[in-house]
């Protein structure tokens, strides 16, 4: 049963990725639509990461006791300043581990 479920899930994830690049799908994109879609990467990626920082167990957490918020703030600064993906990840992970550890003391 689980095997069948997994196969059907695979079909779903593939379909959501593939459907709109199928050539025979009758969809034509105008210049306006293309412009609109050009904002999809920052929009979707942001809509994924921001709730991870601010929402925990369904509750809003905007206090400075929130290790996610501390580490994310430093990561945003690091990314804006250096534009380096490795440096940003390093700053983020170190500050996350440290602030979790220190806040738990």
């Amino acid at each position: 049963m689980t095997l069948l479920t997994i196969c059907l899930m695979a079909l779903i994830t593939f379909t959501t990725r593939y459907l709109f690049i199928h050539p025979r799908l009758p969809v034509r994109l105008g210049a306006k639509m293309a412009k609109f879609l050009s904002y999809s990467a920052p929009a979707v990626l942001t809509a994924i990461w921001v709730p991870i920082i601010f929402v925990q167990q369904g509750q809003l957490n905007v206090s400075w006791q929130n290790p996610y918020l501390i580490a994310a703030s430093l990561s945003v600064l690091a990314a804006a300043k250096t534009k380096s993906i490795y440096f940003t990840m390093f700053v983020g992970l170190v500050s996350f581990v440290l602030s979790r550890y220190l806040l738990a003391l």
Partner: protein
Amino acid sequence: MALSKQKARWLMAQKGFLDMLPLNLAVLPWGILCGSLAIQRDFSVLEAILMPLIVFAGSVQLVSIELIANQTSLLTVLFTSFIISSRHFLYGLALRDKLKKLPSKWRYGIGFLLTDELFALSGHRKACVGQLRLIYALVAGGSFYIFWLLWNIVGVVAGSYLPDLTHLGLDFAIAVTFIALVIPSIINLPVLVTVLCAGVLSVLFKLLQFELDLVAAALIAMYGGYLTDRWLQRRADKNGNVVDKNKTKQGIS
């Protein structure tokens, strides 16, 4: 000196691998979490490995493992997977004009590999155009697939020895990766508006437990970016006309 074709292909493959490498490493905790969770929730090894092998989607895997373990109905599992995965429609649409012309072999390949991560590296105006950029996309996306599979297998193997990892804050690794990708991409006002809208709305919709929270927030944010761009364009057109008139005057005098 012109590069030989083979050398150019090799360089592009290398670049694809190196550009994806930080993301491949960043999903290590997430992949181990997915693999070990499947084992801890009594999935067989085959089932646990089929997840990254054919479903190949972190958040769908994580959520569906819990749902299946809790004996949720098949329809609910599939519907939830569809909702979580529906953001990929946007990626396909955004790359449609470039990818629809490809031979089917490439199209199926890139389509299968079109994750958040590969899409994040496909922002270039000419992404996936021409053989070299296709090689780049295939190696970047393909390496992500292999690493994802590898981290999941590590989780499956170590699964019964690991404690429950779901409350360790491993999702922060995903967040910091996306911060590192998004923040440097804010190069103009429309993108800034998009990011701010997406951030505020996604939190709001999540708190309201709106099922399509992610996609709804993204769509409204994209529209915000689009409107900002149009507004800037109109303003520039007005100013541009004034400048043109001045130029003509100067030209005459």
